[in-house]
């Protein structure tokens, strides 16, 4: 925890520093700040407020169209327009959001694998990915990471390669050939010099790792091979040992199966990885922990906290939809992400998450596992207060949303019969 906090503080400091630097450097930015302050003053004067994105827009457009002297008019017009465009109370924004995300689902592709960005890496996209996101799956079906590098690692291919070697999981079988001698019950490992050099692994390291396996001994022979002898000779043990050796991790991080280094314009070297291990990768030297991303939502939640997980859900869901050419307003996705994360944990949309934790018995019973919910309600003496939508429909009453939430009644004078 403590470590994380300090890291976060560092980010803030850095951000501030860079901002300050930029301010001094460009007078244009300065002018923007001035305009911004002016707008804020106008807003104060009229006791109104505007979202920052609008303020920014006004600043930009005012500078572009040279309307600085009409700023107040501009701001007032913006306020009017903004207030017109605000969402109205009692709007069933939840249902609209659910529909807006669900409806395009029918138009999405089902193909699990698609080549995205980096042609060499398979990523789950389309509907399966979207379902994965709302399910809050603990591990995505195709985990991957975009690992950005910092400082010199960005520009120097050798350094980038080094980072990549530290990240990619290398097994013994990847860098050597194995021979099993059944007569003497020994295994001979012949390291592949070329591969080892490429992966930057020394023979001592291999020996160190072999030492960690119990019940076998490894000895370096003169010809550069390693001879493995068993403590308790036997065919079964030999087989077990060879399996253990094959999968022996020599270097890298668990879960990272493959890495690809690519040079991106305006960025330098970036590492793309198949498999994800967010926690560990962030610790690797040379990795820029502020920009590195993964598609594993749960690991982001574990390492960076619930706010990060929320943002992650939003970006992942949005990108998934956009990639399919489906335009969905960000606000709908935000609402889904917020529902999933309001209680401080990442909850799935479905019976094991949000829907299962609803207070209303009837609503839960109407969704899934009907009988169990009813029985439990009986034992615990639960009370349904009929505040939600499903309950009121079941009971046959108007729903507490939209026009149904207005409690205004007009009395009509009675017509007298002729």
């Amino acid at each position: 925890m403590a470590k994380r906090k300090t890291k976060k503080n560092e980010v803030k400091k850095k951000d501030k520093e860079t901002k300050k630097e930029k301010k001094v450097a460009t007078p244009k930015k300065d002018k923007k700040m001035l305009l911004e302050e002016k707008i804020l003053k106008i807003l104060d004067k009229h006791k109104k407020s505007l979202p920052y994105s609008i303020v920014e827009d006004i600043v930009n457009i005012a500078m572009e169209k040279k309307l600085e002297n009409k700023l107040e008019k501009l701001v007032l017009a913006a306020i009017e327009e903004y207030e017109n465009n605000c969402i109205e109370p009692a709007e069933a924004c939840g249902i609209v959001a659910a529909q807006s995300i669900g409806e395009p689902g029918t138009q999405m592709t089902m193909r699990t694998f698609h080549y995205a960005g980096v042609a060499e890496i398979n990523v789950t996209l389309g509907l399966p990915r979207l379902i994965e996101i709302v399910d809050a799956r603990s591990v995505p079906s195709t985990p991957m990471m975009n690992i950005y590098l910092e400082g010199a690692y960005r520009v120097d291919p050798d350094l980038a390669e080094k980072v990549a070697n530290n990240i990619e999981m290398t097994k013994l079988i990847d860098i050597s050939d194995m021979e099993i001698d059944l007569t003497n019950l020994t295994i001979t490992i012949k390291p592949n010099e070329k591969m080892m050099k490429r992966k930057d692994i020394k023979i001592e390291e291999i020996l160190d790792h072999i030492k960690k396996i119990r019940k076998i001994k490894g000895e370096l022979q003169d010809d550069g091979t390693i001879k493995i002898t068993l403590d308790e000779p036997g065919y079964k043990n030999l087989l077990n040992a060879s399996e253990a050796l094959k999968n022996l991790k020599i270097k890298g991080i668990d879960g990272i199966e493959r890495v690809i280094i690519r040079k991106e314009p305006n960025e330098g070297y970036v590492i793309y990885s198949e498999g994800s291990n967010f926690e560990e990768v962030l610790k690797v030297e040379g990795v820029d922990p502020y920009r590195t991303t993964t598609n594993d939502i749960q690991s982001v939640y574990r390492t960076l906290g619930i706010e990060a997980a929320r943002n992650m859900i939003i970006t992942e869901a949005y990108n998934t939809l956009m990639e399919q050419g489906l335009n969905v307003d960000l606000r709908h996705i935000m609402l889904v992400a917020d529902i999933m994360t309001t209680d401080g944990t990442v909850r799935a949309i479905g019976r094991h998450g949000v829907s299962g934790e609803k207070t209303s018995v009837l609503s839960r019973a109407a969704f899934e596992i009907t009988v169990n919910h009813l029985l439990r309600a009986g034992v615990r003496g639960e009370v349904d207060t009929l505040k939600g939508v499903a309950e009121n429909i079941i009971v046959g009453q108007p729903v507490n949303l939209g026009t149904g939430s207005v409690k205004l009644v007009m009395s009509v004078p009675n017509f007298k019969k002729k």
Partner: protein
Amino acid sequence: MITKKIGRIEFTLLSPKEIREMSATKVITADTYDDDGFPINMGLMDTHLGVIEPGLRCKTCGLRAGKDGCPGHFGHIDLAMPVVHVGFVKYIRNCLRATCRECGRILLSDERLEFYKKEIERFEKEGRSIAPLVKDIVKECENVSKCPRCKRENGKIDLDKPTTFRENGKKLTPSEIREWLEKIPDEDLKFLNINPKVARPEWMVLTVLPVPPVTVRPSVTLESGERSEDDLTHKLVDVIRINQRLQENRDAGAPQLIVEDLWELLQYHVTTYLDNQTSGIPPARHRSGRPLKTLAQRLKGKEGRFRSNLSGKRVNFSARTVISPDPNLSINEVGVPIEVARELTVPVRVTPYNIEWLREMIKRGPNPKPPEGVKYIPGVNYIIRDPKTLKQRRIKITEKNAADVAERLEVGMIVERQLMDGDIVLFNRQPSLHRMSMMAHKVRVLPYKTFRLNLSVCPPYNADFDGDEMNLHVVQSEEARAEAEILMKVQEHILSPRFGGPIIGGIHDHISGCFLLTYKDKKFPIQEATHILSAINYRGKLPNIIEENGKKYILGKDIFSVLLPKDLSIEYKAKSCFNCEVCTAPNCPHDAYVIIEKGVLKKGVIDEKGIGAFKGLILDKIIREHGVDYGREFIDKVTKLGITAINICGFTVGIDDEDIPPEARRQIEEGLEKAKKKINSLIKAYNKGELEALPGRSLEETLEMEIMRVTGRARDMAGEIASRYLGLDNSAVIMAKSGARGSMLNLSQMSGCVGQQAVRGERINRGYRGRTLPHFKKGDLGAEAKGFVSSSYKKGLTPTEYFFHSMGGREGLVDTAVRTSRSGYMQRRLINALEDIKIEEDCTVRDPEGNVIQFVYGEDGVDPAKSIAGKPIYIDKIIEKVESS
């Protein structure tokens, strides 16, 4: 109006005492009816339990059967020996594991109990479920062998699914369990997640079984006069029969073994009566072998009570029929067949102001003959004389009594008038995936038997006319009508809340028509131009007339401009933009840069991006600046204009449209030949091991990827060559370029080359061992052997190509089928999770418990439907406003 409101619903367990108290009669005989067909007293169909035959009176409440009569009453069966309720087995197990058999207390020391008590309080305060705590308690108790209070050695409790409990391997009878559970004091129950105020654990072992009223399990009389009983009745007969035998045997002092067997049989019947899908026991079956539908099955699942009858309800005043297009209707109208209009009614309250009008209408009867020149006039089907009581007061109007009833019409009655033009109805097409799937339309009563709708409303409903059916609902109250008109009318939904853009707009021929009308400087002879303008009822001045060779012409662009509001200015790149490297903007050679100035189309062609559904920029701007009603009119007119234009220009696609000159054919063939050679050389390199593997890929994968790339490029090349010879004189090209329908890819497949067929994103590699079809050699990796179709649709596919093409096609079909179910379920979950969320008066987003989900909706409080493609404000509009001031 609601007179009574249900405030809340409490759930409790029924105690044996309660069951007996609410019981109207004890049920002891397994028979239902006697020989004369009358219900047997104290039988399952006892008239104390309510009645189902019309005319009979219930012996408990004295009311008749029917809608407002006797609701039915419960009876009870006294069980000879107690049995376990399957639904509560889990709770019973927890109770037994966590408590002492001797003293009934929880097997934990006072300190531990105090600790857990505090934990429970903390959890409840935080609003969390205490289920995990109970799990911990039970686990901890399981490890306690000796009761800390009475020092009894408690054994290990095992549960033999579904209903048998054992202590240290010794079977516990339900009586023993019940005795044990009775001992547990109320204070200890909350540690087991049982609320002692409403439930006692011993009630989970049944001693008396409630018998549901006959209204719940009505028997059906078949045509042969034979009675067919409900599944529940069948099951209850079993229960009573075994119960009786058990009692007799026990009382007669039969051997223990026989009694126990019968007891277990009773347990089986009660278990299946409650849930016939309990795992571990065979489901009880009907004589025919069909499993019985007992209590749990009635509630559960999609066809269960909850989802099928409570969450969704059947309604009156609705109609369903096939839909068909009618471009002459406005987008907010719906054509209703006369037959439907005669059946559906609108209630009208008689007032001094409308009494004469209604009287006239009643006099006409239910099937009035319209006057000359009119196709339909509404009649009246019913009148309700005393609206307050509603009962028995509904008078059906017939030809005979019409005049009579009309005379007696009084103020305050309700007349159920037939549908007429201008009524507001709701129109819906399933699946109702978004709110635009149900919109309010105005009725136009028309002859023939289909619902008619404007083509522009097809996208929101996702409707086509290949046999689609749609539903229509007539709203019945003034409030509902007002809401429908204000909130649900079609024009209110032109802008979708999904992305803040128009979802209703021109489609297909509308776009082609406008394209033809406005492309470059297309001009129309004045007669044709006036014909087009007359289609939209244009009454203003004629646009600029150009004279050429003594003939008068009007520019298509000028005709289109007639529709535009005078203050509209917009500039954008059209759909047909070629994305040239150097954009010459206003002087675009393809006329793809649209400039509209003060309501005049100066440059550019109108296509999908201007007026199309989902994309129409002109449409979007008009609605934002002039409101939805103006927008509706614009869509109506623009579509009519498009259709008239396409009618005049003529538009047809035939097989010879896909003809390309022989030299093009030759070029394509050469290109394909080259591609095949390239593939062969790749394969050769692979076989020799000279192929360089891509990083992180095996050689095979690399080869496949390379070949896929080559075949993809080959198809593109063929399409490119083909499209060079297909110009805008080709109707199919016009459709593709304007975005009306189809794409250039479709065209290139028709005239160039169909391209690589794929299954699961790979070239086809299934079929026989080592090859796809016996036409090829084993291990052949070449283009043809793996599903490359080098023919065009026009030319026709070879047999092998045809086969591969079907494989690709089949995958697509399967994909769609799987996708609909998967995305449907995802949407159901999303809706269920989010349905209760609403914006409160303080603009926060909350759930019904009052928990804040968002402090400001969407971080800026802007309604996505009103947003400008996601942007909170329309900055251009503001600039215009400020600049002009």
